[in-house]
């Protein structure tokens, strides 16, 4: 990677929750302009925390970046507010949906365009989101709380797109979505990336998908980056294959045949 076109540069950050719980222990990563970068890792590895640190949503969780630096296009952003970041084109899709429960789906989407003024563009964008997720159009007048889990997830993704971002932080976008929608979401990512040069940083559990669509990957374990490399390389790495793709040692094993569940291997103990 050349350093010139790096949009996001996370440099050795340490994150502490509640003044005492140290969660990230020096995480560094770079996201080049126009790329799709994936963060992979097991539950509790710190993926979400990393994304929150970038989008500055840590404060609401009583977390703080205590060491290291985060730069967006060369500008230090640790002290900006999340709203400032959205102004600079960085939008996060939060894990676990977080739709505005009392607003309808359409209101949710329109709220996503809060930072924009041009009515025509917003309307066009809304149509685009509805085109991506036809299901949302059907449910546009329901209050978000009363839509299904997958519908909420689509709503959250669509809402972020309404801000017309230049960089999107996606936290587990595939969660709760039906397979073909998952596929579609990644196609949308690819599409936006290719056509509008939107940069993506995504945290995913669906490793095979993530590696298929991303350009570069970081693997995290208990608050550290333990491995990184171009997506294609990672996809062929034996360990990754075994633990993240479930195809260790040749063919995909049936879930029925995996034997014991006490065989976890970690890069770092």
């Amino acid at each position, binding site marked *: 990677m050349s350093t010139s076109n790096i949009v996001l540069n996370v440099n050795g950050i340490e994150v502490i929750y509640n003044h005492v719980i140290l969660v990230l222990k020096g995480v560094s990563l770079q996201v080049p302009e126009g790329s799709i970068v994936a963060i992979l890792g097991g539950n509790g590895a710190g993926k979400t925390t990393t994304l929150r640190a970038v*989008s500055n*949503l840590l*404060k*609401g*969780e009583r977390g703080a970046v205590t060491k290291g630096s985060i730069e967006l296009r060369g500008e230090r952003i640790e002290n900006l*507010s*999340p*709203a400032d*970041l*959205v*102004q600079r084109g960085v*939008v*996060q*899709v*939060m894990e676990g949906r*977080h*739709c*505005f*429960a*009392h*607003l309808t789906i359409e*209101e*949710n989407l*329109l*709220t*996503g365009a*809060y*930072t924009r003024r041009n009515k025509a563009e917003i309307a066009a964008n809304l149509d685009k989101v509805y085109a991506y997720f036809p299901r949302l159009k059907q449910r546009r007048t329901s*209050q978000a*709380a*009363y839509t299904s889990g997958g519908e909420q997830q689509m709503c*959250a993704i669509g*809402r*972020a797109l*309404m*801000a017309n971002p230049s960089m999107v932080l996606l936290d587990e976008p595939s969660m709760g979505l039906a397979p073909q929608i998952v596929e579609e979401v990644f196609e949308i990512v690819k599409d936006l990336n290719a056509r509008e040069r939107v940069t993506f940083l995504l945290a995913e559990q669906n490793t095979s998908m993530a590696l298929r669509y991303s350009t570069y990957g970081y693997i995290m374990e208990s608050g550290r980056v333990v491995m990184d490399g171009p997506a294609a390389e990672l996809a062929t790495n034996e360990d990754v294959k075994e633990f993240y793709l479930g195809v260790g040692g040749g063919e995909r094993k049936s879930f029925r045949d995996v034997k014991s569940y006490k065989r976890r291997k970690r890069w770092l103990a």
Partner: protein
Amino acid sequence: MAFFLETLLGGLMAGMLYSLVALGFVLIFKASGVFNFAQGAMVLFAALAMARLSEWIPQLTGLQNKVAADLLAFVLAGALMFVVAWLVEWLVLRHLVNQEGATLLMATLGIAYFLEGLGQTLFGSSIYKIDIGMPKDPVFVLDKVFPGGILINKEDLYAALIAAVLVVLLSLFFQKTGTGRALRAVADDHQAAQSIGIPLGRIWVIVWCVAGVVALVAGMIWGSKLGVQFSLATVALRALPVVILGGLTSVPGAILGGLIIGVGEKLSEVYIGPMVGGGIEIWFAYVLALGVLLIRPQGLFGEKIIDRV
């Protein structure tokens, strides 16, 4: 019959006055999901400012025209409420993003104490007068139909009008503008709102400021009725069943709730009270609100309480 009508009217107008205070609660609740305990203190603070400024301005500037002085005092008091709103955001709310309702509630309570102390320090704790030229004496209408006529209080009538205008304006603001939508979003989920670029700080300043102005109007009207002093803050307690009955999130609800509570408590006090020794209106208001809640747990116009799994 005449007396019944009188009581009814009296109740309606008292209700409108409650609504004015209730509006302040609704605004802030709608915009941040916080039940603002400081509303009563804000009413007091605003009224104190208004009362003392309208007294000081002629003294300091030699302004003789009373209307001009009052107007200036109103504007200055409004500006003061803006400063309060800004300080509240800057010193309190921004540090409590994404915290639970109870925490925020408590914080507004801290604000309430602070404002009560500050208000009395700056403006004194005696009884002060706001005289915006409201007519005090009663008028009697329909004296052809009923012996003695029906008593109407002009002051209350004006107050009710002002309240109605405020409500219409605020309803429009909430229903029709993007900011209104953003406010509701903030109330639902601070973090998600932040994540899509809604500047919580600015939103809160706006809302607290609007609530401050509503408090100022309420304080002015109540103040001209009661005189301005500490007890004004307790008016909030009478407005509480109104908010709850109307629904915490509904501006029109605050009005309708006010009318129902106003009428209910006056009728009960006048007709049931004497049978049980009187003094029942306040608990009756609460029981009335409770009765409605049992049928509609979110109040008449409140947003449905969502519980989903």
